């Protein structure tokens, strides 16, 4: 396919490099051309790509190859390092004004997701104990004010509106309002505008002057192409941005814009929008993004998601059962439904190193298989679930008929269960021998 994920492409390139003893200049050059094409295809701005490639090849050719690593892996590490370095090497936090009211201004092009992000940010702040106020300063787009009001209502966060008046006045009045109502953070939702629209860009400067915000965040659609650079540059020049928010990252965009905007503005990416729900605003982790791009999977996000989703009490019960080796099919079923809660199967797998897009093809079927598994287990008697070893031929026949599957399906499930049990046993043994220490995930797991 012409549009494989960047991950897949880089994987292919590095597969080619892997296993070679030494990297010649020609090898590096060939790989760099592929990296370049892949990055361009991922919408990284071509100027940024050029710089990046130059830096990487200098390091790749010049560097002494460590003995413990094969040269191919060394190149991957360099590419990874450079991507991380480019995107900012650590997670960035919001700046709060030390005393009084913190003003946060959201700016950006039309349709980048400012209003939705304002709501998400409000929710995040109120969860962390702040008392945010949303300010509707988009007086141009029809019903924009109403949209923010509805969002505020849903979140139980106050929304300050003053109709279609001058946004500068609205912003100033909102500070007074916040003072009177004890709000400590103001989030100003400005109208979407083109970076070349003199009049409207000037309006933003005037709002900035009037309320002196601690944060001016540019909201950027992560699907933006080469133009992201021009937009970010201009907004930054006019307003001296303090940070960026990437939206719509829950799609399959390769998100090259993240690299581009970071490179031209030097501003940290502070949050990423990961979905339409008002909870779906997450901190940006450069390492995770780079890992994801490079096909090393996003194990950290997976772990975080799992720990958020898994029911703690049930997990403890499960742990107890594992220790006493009484893990039965009931628990297996429970485990499956917990996994399903984390996300769809392909979503989960895409975060695991080594699972490339190509291998994921046809996984939709497997999602249905989970339903079959549930049906099969539900067709067993409580006795059978507790003690699967009693399931003989005729029981299998009955279970298959009851669940509308075949005997082969039932057999496969029992085998899977047996394997899971073995795996769990190994893990608990490991724990017992206190070998756990730092569980390292395979860094270069292709």
């Amino acid at each position, binding site marked *: 396919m*012409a*549009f494989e994920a960047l991950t897949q492409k880089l994987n292919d390139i590095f597969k080619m490099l892997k296993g070679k003893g030494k990297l010649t200049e020609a090898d590096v050059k060939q790989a760099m051309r592929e990296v370049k*094409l892949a990055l*361009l*295809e*991922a*919408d990284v*701005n*071509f100027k940024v790509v050029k710089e990046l490639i130059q830096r990487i090849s200098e390091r790749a050719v010049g560097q002494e190859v460590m003995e413990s690593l094969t040269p191919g892996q060394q190149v991957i590490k360099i590419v990874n390092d450079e991507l991380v370095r480019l995107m900012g090497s650590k997670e960035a936090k919001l700046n709060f004004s030390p005393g009084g009211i913190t003003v946060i201004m959201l700016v950006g*092009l*039309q*349709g*980048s*997701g400012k209003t939705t992000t304002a709501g998400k940010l409000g929710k995040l702040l109120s969860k962390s104990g702040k008392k945010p106020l949303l300010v509707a300063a988009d007086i*141009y*787009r*029809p*019903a*924009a004010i*109403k*949209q*923010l*009001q*509805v*969002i505020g209502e*849903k979140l139980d966060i106050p929304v300050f509106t003053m109709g279609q008046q001058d946004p500068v006045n609205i912003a100033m009045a909102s500070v007074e309002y916040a003072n009177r109502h004890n709000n400590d953070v103001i989030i100003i939702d400005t109208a979407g505008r*083109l*970076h*070349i629209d003199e009049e409207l860009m000037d309006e933003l400067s005037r709002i900035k002057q009037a309320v002196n915000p601690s944060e001016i965040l540019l909201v950027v*659609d992560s*699907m*933006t*192409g*080469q*133009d*992201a650079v*021009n*937009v970010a540059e201009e907004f930054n020049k006019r307003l001296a941005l303090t940070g960026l928010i990437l939206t*719509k990252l*829950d*799609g*399959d*965009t*390769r998100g*090259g*814009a993240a690299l581009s905007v970071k490179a031209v503005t030097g501003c940290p990416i502070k949050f990423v929008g990961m979905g*339409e729900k008002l909870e779906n605003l997450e901190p940006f982790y450069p390492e995770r993004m780079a890992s994801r791009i490079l096909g090393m999977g996003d194990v950290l996000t997976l772990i975080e998601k799992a720990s958020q989703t898994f029911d703690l009490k049930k997990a403890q019960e499960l742990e107890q059962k594992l220790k006493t080796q009484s893990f039965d099919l009931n628990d297996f079923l429970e485990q499956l439904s917990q996994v399903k809660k984390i996300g*769809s199967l392909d979503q989960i797998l895409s975060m695991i190193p080594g699972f490339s897009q190509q291998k994921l093809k046809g996984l939709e079927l497997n999602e249905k298989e989970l339903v079959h598994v549930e049906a099969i287990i539900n067709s067993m008697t409580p006795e059978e679930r507790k003690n699967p070893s009693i399931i003989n031929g005729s029981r299998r026949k009955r279970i298959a008929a009851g669940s509308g599957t075949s005997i082969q399906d039932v057999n496969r499930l029992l085998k899977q269960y047996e394997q899971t049990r073995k795996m769990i046993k190994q893990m608990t043994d490991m724990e017992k021998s206190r070998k756990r220490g730092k569980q390292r995930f395979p860094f270069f797991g292709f």
Partner: protein
Amino acid sequence: MGFFDKLKQGLSKTRNNFTDRIENLLKFTKRVDEETLEELEEVLISADVGINVTQKLMDSLRERVKTSRIRSSEDLKTALKDEIKGLFPQKKMSLQPPSVLLVVGVNGVGKTTSIGKLAHIFKNQGYKVIMAAGDTFRAAAAEQLEIWGQRSGVDVIRHQEGSDPASVLFDAIQAGKSRRTDIIICDTAGRLHTKKNLMEELRKLYRVCQKEYPDAQLLSLMVLDATTGQNALAQARIFKDAVDISGIVLTKLDGTAKGGIAIAIAQELNLPVWFIGVGEGIDDLQEFNSDEFVDAIL
């Protein structure tokens, strides 16, 4: 002001960026050599045309340079124009009322705004139009459509926020039939093409239109943000698969985005662009003409 001028004006900012670079490039290098071609390649890539199409274009341009002995930069420009023009499918939008237009796209591309402008255009052409507020998800989307309806004097069929979009479309179709409406334009909630359940919902909307109004001409329009990069191809491909896209509305061409993705989509998916958005005013939606588009860009 003729159509050509208007288009040219609308695209002038796009043009300035994209064309100036090409023109600068061509002015100062009189002879065509490999370096000129490579720089031209860069211009195409920075216009979001995409690697594949750019390489295809460059290959055939190189071939032409060889066979027809292109020497001057002016000839090179004409040759490139020809190559790009050749990529656009010549499928014009032909309305055969009664028509149902299902307008789809990812979040924030300008669906509702484009629908407002489309309704205005069709009404001015003498059609009887209604709009269906099928975006029942985003806060205040129906209100937004209603304001557009008031601007152009077009009725809007709407339900409560959070209600089933299929039932909105159903009602709009019934209303359209009984009022003898020529064109029903249906708004839909923005959705990322990767959300399987939301794409299923869209398929359902398409089926509702087919089933409830079999006599009508059903066209799916995909709205695409011109600032979008290569992801637009994935969008177009999946939306096409779900609701059989007939044509594309390319919005936000009044910025510095070059809209080169339209060329890539034309080439890779054989989908025509029917309208372009060049501003926020009600008249800022124009019919797309591939020849003039390319002439205005190059």
